[in-house]
């Protein structure tokens, strides 16, 4: 009997400990500010109301806005609330409730929300998702309000293109931040190989020649591979390949968006050039199993001399390891950034990022728009770009001389940047492309048949056939 009793005591002790553990977490969350709980009421401090700066909505009834965002920054919900703090102080009636969706399930969740109209007030959408959700009737037209956020001329045309449905005039979204791709290279490796970076990243020929020279040099006791490329298991499989297709003179779809053209001669040239770098031994094959995060980490360790990724890595190199960053890594102090080399058709890169939209089912559309307006202000744009390590969406900030020097290379790269056709079927199209491009990386890695132009052509043709059946539906 006693034995049984003591067991239950032990049991309840463990339960109590578990709850305590959970409770502790809650406390430490609170320690970093009430924001961590996912929502924050703007404090109705006297200073806020006394400032008198509040716009008309400040005097109106209390309103709770919900926003769905993705994990864009290290502490996604708290970071957004930090950026929103000045606004919330001025608008004590507004409470912002932030929900973070992970990229894996966000698409599923937003699709169901868009069908039903049950969702947030403010919705972050990946740039390629806007036309799809717009055509489902999930988000509001904001065509007549775009002057509030500065109008089209204040944004990169590649990112502004993502705010509408191709062939239509209406605007559905406002660019929030921009993601572009550029080259990060290890300056020590280039020094050791005696390669001049200024020449190396000019053209495809000079790029390949430089990689050949850098391949295998020793930096800090490590033998480096020239290039790190993530393969099938990355979540950017499609974005990793299209810059090369564009630079070769290929395109995604025909001008009328009725058929796929990426499998035509020039597109294949681009794919062959890029995958060829891996096939020529310039890439450590083991990287083809990894994702972008792992490739970035390898670059930080000096395992590869060149990688192609987005602006966030520079921020990551400045973040201490306790916060999940890589400032302690060798390459954190010996890297530089350059735009991608020019192919036969000139320079190119992928422009993505995220847009902000007003959800159709929202009951507080004016207030939601007001928040988006604030997030599009230079002040908020700058603050969020700093926290997230992304490029701001506003042209004035991208072109500003105060821009961080690392970001300047990205700003330069955006000049040649392209985005995907803004068609409603892009979601399914990208799903199909991801599948076939994944197969291409398997071919390159040598685990799926022989690598040659025919096998790549065949995979690209399969992809084109599938994309055609999707867009001609």
């Amino acid at each position, binding site marked *: 009997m006693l034995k049984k009793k003591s067991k239950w005591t032990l049991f309840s002790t463990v339960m109590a400990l578990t709850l305590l553990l959970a409770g502790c977490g809650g406390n430490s969350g609170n320690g970093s500010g009430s924001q961590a709980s996912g929502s924050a009421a703007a404090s109705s401090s006297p200073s806020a109301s006394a400032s008198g700066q509040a716009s008309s909505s400040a005097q109106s009834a209390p309103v709770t806005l919900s926003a769905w965002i993705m994990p864009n920054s290290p502490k996604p919900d708290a970071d957004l609330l930090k950026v929103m703090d000045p606004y919330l102080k001025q608008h004590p009636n507004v409470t912002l409730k932030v929900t973070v969706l992970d990229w894996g399930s966000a*698409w599923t969740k937003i699709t169901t929300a868009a069908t039903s109209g049950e969702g947030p007030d403010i919705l972050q959408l990946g740039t390629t998702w806007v036309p799809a959700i717009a055509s489902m009737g999930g988000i509001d037209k904001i065509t007549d309000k775009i002057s509030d956020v500065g109008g089209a001329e204040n944004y990169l045309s590649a990112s502004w293109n993502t705010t509408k449905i191709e062939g239509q005039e209406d605007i559905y979204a406002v660019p929030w931040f921009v993601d572009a791709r550029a080259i990060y290279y290890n300056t020590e490796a280039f020094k050791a190989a005696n390669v001049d970076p200024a020449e190396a990243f000019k053209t495809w020929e000079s790029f390949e020649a430089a990689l050949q020279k850098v391949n295998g040099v020793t930096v800090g006791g490590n033998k480096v591979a020239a290039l790190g490329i993530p393969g*099938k298991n990355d*979540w950017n*499989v499609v974005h990793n390949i299209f810059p090369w297709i564009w630079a070769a003179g290929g395109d995604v779809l025909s001008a009328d968006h009725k058929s796929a053209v990426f499998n035509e001669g020039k597109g294949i040239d681009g794919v062959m050039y890029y995958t060829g770098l891996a096939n020529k031994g310039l890439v450590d094959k*083991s990287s083809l199993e990894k*994702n972008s995060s792992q490739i970035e980490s390898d670059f930080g360790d000096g395992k590869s001399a060149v990688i192609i990724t987005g602006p966030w890595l520079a921020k990551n190199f400045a973040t201490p390891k306790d916060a999940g960053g890589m400032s302690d890594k060798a390459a954190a102090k010996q890297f530089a950034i350059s735009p991608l080399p020019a192919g036969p058709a000139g320079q190119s890169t992928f422009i993505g990022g995220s847009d902000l939209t007003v959800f159709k089912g929202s009951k507080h559309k004016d207030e939601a728009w007001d928040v988006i307006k604030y997030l599009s202000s230079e002040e908020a744009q700058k603050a969020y770009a700093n926290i997230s390590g992304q490029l701001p969406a506003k042209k004035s900030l991208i072109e500003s001389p105060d821009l961080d020097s690392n970001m300047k290379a990205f700003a330069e790269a955006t000049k040649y940047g392209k985005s995907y056709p803004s068609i409603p079927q892009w979601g399914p199209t990208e*799903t*199909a492309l991801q599948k076939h491009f994944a197969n291409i990386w398997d071919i390159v890695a040598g685990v799926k048949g022989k690598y040659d132009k025919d096998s790549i052509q065949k995979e690209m043709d399969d992809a084109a056939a599938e994309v055609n059946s999707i867009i001609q539906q």
Partner: protein
Amino acid sequence: MQSETAAKRKTRGFAYFQKGFRTHRFAYALIVPTLLFMLLVHFLPMAQGIIMSTLKLNQFTLARYLHAPFIGLDNYKSLLFDGSNPVRQGMGFAVRNTVIYTIVVTFLVLAWGLAVAMLMNRPFPGRGIARTAMLLPWVVPSYVVGVLWGFMWQQDGIINYLLVDVLHLMGEKPFWLIGHNTIWAIIIPTIWRGWPFLMIVFLAALQTIPEDIYEAARIDGAHKLRQFVHITLPLLKPVFAVQLLFQFINNVYSYNIVSTMFGNGAGYPGEWGDLLMTALTRQSFGYWAFGSGSAASFLLMVVMLVFVGIWYRMFRSELNAQ
């Protein structure tokens, strides 16, 4: 004529039911809440799912849901006969992988579970600790299993280190997360998480077999293998039947491990990693082919019911014996 007998049968059935109801009032009282509840949450949605499979449901019509254009059996037709249907793309791989995965996992989980249960069904020092330790993988959530094994399978990860650098079982480090090895990268973690439960079930069953049966067999001169074949296996057959069915269903409908192991939950698991459930989910939400997706789910369900029918015929006597 036919309807008349049917009607007769019906009234007779009803009378029988009425009488049965009076004698088994208590049983009905116990089971009716459950039945109503199941009807609400299983059969209503299923009926909707079947209706969905006859509609043209894509991103433009989804908002109209059940009022979307009715297209009869077109979804089924195009699924079965139209090679260019996007939903079909890659389905062949998913079906093949699911067949391999289900057969291998189900067989190994049952066999290994039984083998270890036999090992554990003998006294040795620390048996309680060993039993608890073996059960631990079953407690690890499968979404953790996917991520955890994803790390271990990396080419420069711990598994290759142990296989190549420590045990020298292989010449060079293979890829596990790309190419045809992927199927093993999903099968092995599933077995790892699955067999402990079977072990405990079989162990429990073994302990209910009275020792004197073996004693008698031993006196008759039966050696261990004969005892196993003629005593243990037949007595375990009912347990085996039920666990076979549950394992079969679980493995055909397996989703979590694959979806969390590749591409951070959003990627394509590859031609050797894709399973029916990951493919169907991608097709429904990735291609917005909800109509075709429902049609495919329904076909799958019919196939599963056929299998369960076969299973029931095979094990009917064991299931009714109790």
